């Protein structure tokens, strides 16, 4: 039971990142002058993430359990971790602006992001109720802090506090549900829970516990009706932090939700499916309708992400391997759309001041034609126009829902996509058919170009690599459904 090599190897990327974070604590504390040190810590973090990706790819492809069955390293974990690593890499890269971003110009930012990254990876690999909770807390706590990082801004403090309070509430719900589940199953191990569910009927208390757990996780993926924190946190946080929020944590939370429902509660898909259908419909509606009213692009992106989670949950509600694969494809597109869009939003500055109103995008096609094309691609992809990545995500998700007999859900989803397309197209209209007298700052840092370019390439050429993605997600879905056990 003690510490062994068989435990270390599967968790090597996480162990490496955690060790690096500890080194970065020292660098952050003794690195000298603040702005330069912040850049140094961020660069070291980027190198570290690259090494972690290498370790992940090099790692033994055989699915394995480590630390007494609490840590699952299977192809599902591999796929989702790769997404999270890439997403966090992009977010950190975008925070590394040459002139230095005054908001989060502290070495602690990258350090906390690294620790949150470890938390996300542990969430993805969690195969035990205790590991699940620890992963969530390790991911959430640093994010609460970075949301409030701009200490002299009331809005940032408000965002941090709101995020913290609602996050704490959701953790409480999750724990309460977990305690009920444990009380009935007598084990915290996902495999053990699944085994104890296959025999006998379910007590009501178990359903209550399961609903509480799913609700707690719905907070983390910001699915309606647990989405209240999202717009305020997106708007109030410093933009590089919002970038991170929009890209990585939801992938991890979605992965955890998938592992919990498909892994631990796989036997009772009919029970949780109803809950997820309700969450999905609510999220799609709130996301699509809420975004229309927004004037701030960060708030709009918040509602957009709520809607995206709604579409992803539709695939999850199907409860089939195809549904799981659909969610993974959706999240892949989501990461790159988020990275690309925020690479542009971060550039929305006028005279060095952040200008994040949607109307600030007026006439972007005249002043910054390249950015306008980038944003056009992102918006089309989010709206689900073929042949972009967002379209394939929606396609496989709704296909899985229909195959699982959830036709009304798929219909509502398509309707809401059409409604949602309205506000994405509004941005395009502003960029291309209106003029401005106050252009945004001209300078485009190389990192933004890089992230935007890579994201555009992935989204535009998604159909070319679709075969590979499908193979990977199918394998991962089978691993998730119990292939590893």
């Amino acid at each position, binding site marked *: 039971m003690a510490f062994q090599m068989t*435990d270390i190897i599967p968790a090597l990327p996480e162990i490496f990142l*955690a060790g690096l974070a500890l080194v970065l*604590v020292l660098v952050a504390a003794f690195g000298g002058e603040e702005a330069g040190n912040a850049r140094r810590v961020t660069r070291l973090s980027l190198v570290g993430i690259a090494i972690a990706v290498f370790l992940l790819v090099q790692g033994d492809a055989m699915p394995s359990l480590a630390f007494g069955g609490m840590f699952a390293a299977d192809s599902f974990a591999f796929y989702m971790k790769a997404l999270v690593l890439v997403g966090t890499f992009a977010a950190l890269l975008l925070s590394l602006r040459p002139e230095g971003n005054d908001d989060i110009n502290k070495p602690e930012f990258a350090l906390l992001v690294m620790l949150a990254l470890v938390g996300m990876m542990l969430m993805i690999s969690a195969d035990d109720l205790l590991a699940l909770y*620890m992963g969530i*807390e390790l991911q959430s*706590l*640093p994010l609460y802090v970075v949301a409030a990082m701009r200490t002299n801004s009331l809005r940032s403090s408000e965002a941090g506090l709101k995020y913290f309070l609602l996050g704490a509430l959701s953790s409480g719900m999750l724990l309460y549900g977990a305690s009920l589940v444990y*009380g009935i199953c007598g084990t915290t191990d996902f495999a053990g829970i699944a085994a104890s569910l296959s025999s006998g009927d379910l007590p009501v*208390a178990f359903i209550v516990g399961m609903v509480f757990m799913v609700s707690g996780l719905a907070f983390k993926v910001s699915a309606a009706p647990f989405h209240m924190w999202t717009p305020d946190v997106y708007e109030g946080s410093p933009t590089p932090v919002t970038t991170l929020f929009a890209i990585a944590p939801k992938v991890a939370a979605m992965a955890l939700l998938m592992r919990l429902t498909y892994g631990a509660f796989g036997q009772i898909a009919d029970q949780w499916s109803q809950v997820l259908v309700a969450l999905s419909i609510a999220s799609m509606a709130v996301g699509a309708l809420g975004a229309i009213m927004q004037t701030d692009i960060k708030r709009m992106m918040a509602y957009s992400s709520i809607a995206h989670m709604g579409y992803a949950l539709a695939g999850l509600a199907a409860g089939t391997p195809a549904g799981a694969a659909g969610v993974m494809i959706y999240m892949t597109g989501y990461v790159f759309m988020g990275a690309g869009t925020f690479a542009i939003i971060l550039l929305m500055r006028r005279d060095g001041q952040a200008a994040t109103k949607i109307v600030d995008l007026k006439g972007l096609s005249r002043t910054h034609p390249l950015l306008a094309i980038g944003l056009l691609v992102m918006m089309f992809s989010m709206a689900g126009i073929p042949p972009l990545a967002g379209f394939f995500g929606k396609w496989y998700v709704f296909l899985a829902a229909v195959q699982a007999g959830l036709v009304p859900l798929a219909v509502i989803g398509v309707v809401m996509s059409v409604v949602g397309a309205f506000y994405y197209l509004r941005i395009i209209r502003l960029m291309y058919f209106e003029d401005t007298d106050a252009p945004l700052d001209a300078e485009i840092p190389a990192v933004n170009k890089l992230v935007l370019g890579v994201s555009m390439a992935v989204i535009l050429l998604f159909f070319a690599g679709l075969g590979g993605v499908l193979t990977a997600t199918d394998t991962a879905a089978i691993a998730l459904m119990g292939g590893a056990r």
Partner: protein
Amino acid sequence: MIEALFFYLFAGIMLASGLMVVVSRNPVYSVLFLILAFFNAAGLFVLIGAEFLAMLLVVVYVGAVAVLFLFVVMMLDINFSEMRAGFQKYLPLGLIVGGILVFELVAAMYGDVFKGATLPEAMDISNTRALGNVIYTKYMYLFQVAGLILLVAMIGAISLTMRKREGVRRQSVAAQNLRSRAETVEVVSVPSGSSPENLSTAAVKSTKTTSRNGGNT
């Protein structure tokens, strides 16, 4: 018999002080009653043979956490009438939550809903060792993650609250210890009848700069 007597003694005082935490008018009294409740909880732990947990409860909760509570409560200017007003408003909600918890306790004690979770077998080792086995061997992974979470809490608290102020003079003990006598002290002959202002400005300035170099930067 003695055990039962002590059980009811500890449990009774604990319940009473728990009630007093909520109803007493003075928040300092509330904290003091909370400490009393912790103490009796420790007593109950001793009764069930969990002496390690009992001591830990006293060291951690009474010796550290409650001290901080007491600090904060004593230093803060709390408006009691406002707190009273909230009490009425939140009472129904509190009663509902309490009711649910009581229902759960009853269900756990008398129902067979939670049949899955059984008490582990009592082992023939001291509870210090048993806890060590569980924390550092079986759940070593979670222990390490918990350590990272605490690290995050520490970094977060520091980075959110620490303000770097300009012009703060800090003592550098190492620099102070490293300087020699020649750098710090200068013997200046002061002619009788003259005040320090009349001294050559160079001499005064040099003593000032050396004392600054001597660590107070």
